[in-house]
């Protein structure tokens, strides 16, 4: 037996690395209509973010004067003249759902506009890159300096850049905390050392995350951390406007003796001169000419870059443009089809958005200023009285959402001869109880209902608690059960 075994090493491929080094991206500055829109959105978003906590809004003497305030400690959210209670949290849920549907709609129509223009990661990264460019210079200068030895020039620029980044990050983190507490007071307390621990901790935390994510992680967040790119493709189809390279007129790409080559006409070159300008300006460092890809945030800076080159070479601009896959396929064969903006997908998103918005607005308009919740005692279900009467215990939650104190009137409908006992307010049984309600408060009281029901079929009878605000007339009812002994006949 002389079987020759192949040498094992010969079969084993050279080991591939399990882990990839990060490829540093040095985005180049670019100017153009897309870039200008992006700057505009950036100024708008950051302006709103930093300024909103400082807007004042007069709500009377006992309420905070901040236009937008998420007052977690007092369980109130204020948005201009809307005041949300914990019970109204469904508005926020609804707004989040609507935001998601809007995102689906915009993505299915125009691709990743959110990612490229208004995502906080994009906006702050853009701002940080601007600072970097101002201090360290543009792409080539940065690459050269990073490869070079550590000199004084390099050192002070790096230190200045990180200091500027940290300052912006600190400003950002502090502004976030101001949404949860009174802004002027917080700033004063912060610098005098009197702010709450959570105030300092969250400022520090958000400073650190802003600095790390916008300064260091940048495109890594979009590529590896963010879930949105992973499933946004479910919102895209062949009729979605996405950043597109017009390969049908760009290829074959090439540069150099273009005119000579074109003259031969044997192998005519496309409009793309393969200058890589689109790659150099890309904040995620990709080549749009490879087609639609996960890393593309759809910002369109490559469009501006390419248009400059097209102008120089005298070719038609918009070689990289926004277009749909369907139109690009058609254009390849010389047809110029119309847009397909209205399609079942977008119409369904629109319908959901419209219905949701109407529901939320209606809910907001019809929101009651008076609230009543009732919980029947679990044990005992009822107490039997000496004269044969039955007494049930309830825990009632009274809500006064108005900014004025008022007397609330509690009565019982549908239970003949019923008397109310509110031992904390009026221990004497009465048909209509008066509950003094402070402004903008919730109050919980135990209420005993005493009655002599003629019969209690199956041991219970239903009735209504009726609550009325004597000042405003606002009224609410709560359907409740009165329990007693089964077939209690008198």
């Amino acid at each position, binding site marked *: 037996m002389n079987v020759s075994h192949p040498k094992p090493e010969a*079969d*084993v*491929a*050279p080991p*591939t*690395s*399990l*882990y*990839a*080094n*990060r490829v540093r991206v040095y985005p180049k500055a670019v100017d153009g209509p897309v870039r200008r829109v992006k700057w505009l959105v950036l100024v708008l978003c950051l302006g709103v973010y930093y300024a909103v906590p400082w807007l004042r809004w007069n709500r009377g003497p006992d309420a905070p004067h901040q236009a937008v305030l998420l007052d977690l400690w007092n369980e109130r959210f204020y948005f201009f003249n809307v005041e949300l209670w914990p019970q109204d949290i469904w508005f926020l849920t609804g707004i989040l759902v609507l935001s998601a549907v809007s995102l689906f709609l915009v993505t299915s129509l125009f691709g990743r506009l959110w990612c490229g223009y208004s995502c906080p990661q994009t906006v702050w990264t853009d701002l940080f890159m601007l600072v970097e460019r101002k201090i360290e210079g543009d792409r080539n200068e940065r690459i050269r300096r990073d490869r070079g030895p550590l000199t004084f020039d390099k050192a002070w620029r790096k230190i200045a850049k990180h200091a500027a980044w940290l300052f912006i990050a600190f400003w950002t983190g502090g502004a976030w905390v101001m949404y949860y507490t009174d802004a002027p007071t917080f700033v004063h307390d912060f610098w005098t050392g009197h702010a709450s621990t959570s105030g300092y901790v969250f400022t520090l935390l958000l400073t650190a995350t802003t600095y790390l994510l916008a300064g260091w992680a940048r495109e*890594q967040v979009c590529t*590896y951390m963010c879930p949105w790119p992973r499933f946004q493709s479910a919102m895209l189809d062949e009729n979605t406007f996405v950043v597109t390279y017009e390969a049908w007129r760009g290829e074959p790409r090439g540069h150099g003796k273009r005119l000579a080559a074109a003259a031969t006409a044997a192998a005519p070159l496309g409009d793309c001169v393969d200058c890589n300008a689109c790659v150099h300006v890309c904040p995620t460092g990709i080549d749009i000419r490879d087609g639609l890809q996960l890393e593309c945030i759809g910002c369109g800076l490559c469009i501006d870059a390419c248009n400059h080159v097209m102008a120089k070479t005298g070719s038609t601009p918009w070689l990289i443009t926004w277009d749909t896959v369907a139109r690009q396929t058609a254009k390849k064969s010389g047809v110029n089809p119309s847009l397909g903006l209205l399609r079942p997908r977008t119409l369904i998103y629109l319908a959901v958005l419209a219905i949701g918005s109407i529901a939320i607005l209606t809910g907001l308009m019809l929101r009651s200023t008076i609230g009543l919740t009732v919980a029947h*005692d679990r*044990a*005992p279900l009822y*107490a*039997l*009285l*000496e*004269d*044969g009467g039955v*007494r049930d*215990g309830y825990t009632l939650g009274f809500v006064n959402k108005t900014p004025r104190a008022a007397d609330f009137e509690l009565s019982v409908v549908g239970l003949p001869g019923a008397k109310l*006992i509110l*031992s904390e307010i009026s221990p004497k049984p009465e048909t209509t109880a008066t509950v003094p309600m402070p402004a903008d408060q919730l109050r919980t009281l135990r209420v*005993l209902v005493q009655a002599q029901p003629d019969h209690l079929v199956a041991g219970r009878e239903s009735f209504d608690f009726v609550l009325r605000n004597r000042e405003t007339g606002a009224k609410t009812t709560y359907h409740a059960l009165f329990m007693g002994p089964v077939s209690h006949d*008198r």
Partner: protein
Amino acid sequence: MPTKIEKDVISGRDTTGHEWDGIRELNTPLPKWWVYVYLATIVWALGMFVLYPAIPLGTRATTGLLGFSSRAQAMAGFQEMNALHATQMQEIGRMSFADIEKNHDLMEVALTAGRITFANNCQPCHGPNGEGRIGYPALDTDVWRWGGSLDAIQQTITHGIRSADPDARNSQMPNFGGDKLLTPAQIEDVADYVMTLYGKAKTGVDTSAGEKLFGDNCAPCHGAKAEGNRDVGAPPLASRVHLYGDSRAAVVAQITHPRMGVMPNWNHRLSPATIKAVALYVHSLGGGE
């Protein structure tokens, strides 16, 4: 190990070299920083192991360098809370019921202390919310044997009923059947009459004999109108609420061999302030007078 690294035709990237049913996976290496973050979490976990109790050793666990113990933390919390409430409980012990009721903060402490003490000591007989059961009085109704004012409740809790305490509330119902004070037939007559007092009697039964016997034997304690007498703890019989049941058999049994409940005196177990708190809590259950 993969035998051959190939380039994917479409993406131009390396494959892992593995093949499953003709499908080759692209080699997409993890970024290095991701691995470092992963390693950092391991270091963090090891730090937690060293600093905090971590490894169980039967009945104990490694203590950790910080000496942290959730039990010690809880005990410290209890002590802090007790110290905080000690002064308030002192005030509750010192002040009159009327003054406590005027003080919202003290009332809150008293009702909370009362509720907890009630759950630990009174609930087994009187029920979680004082609803009682056969033989154990309900505390949430308007039927009281010895009185439902705060002072009366405090007295009952402190000294008990028929307990060993010399100041206990004490009374005895004659053993009408056992001591042959009434014949079985007479007892049945009385029972028939008593049932008319709370509307459970059968119609067409002659109760005149029972009414006379009631006047002679029961009225001295229970009252001519069966309204009860709190001085001797005689319950009202003209009431829908009956401690030992309102059926005819239950009434007959109670007259024949009366059952008389015992409640312990709590002054040997609870401090006067705590008893006051329990009285306030019981009073608040719905039957307080």
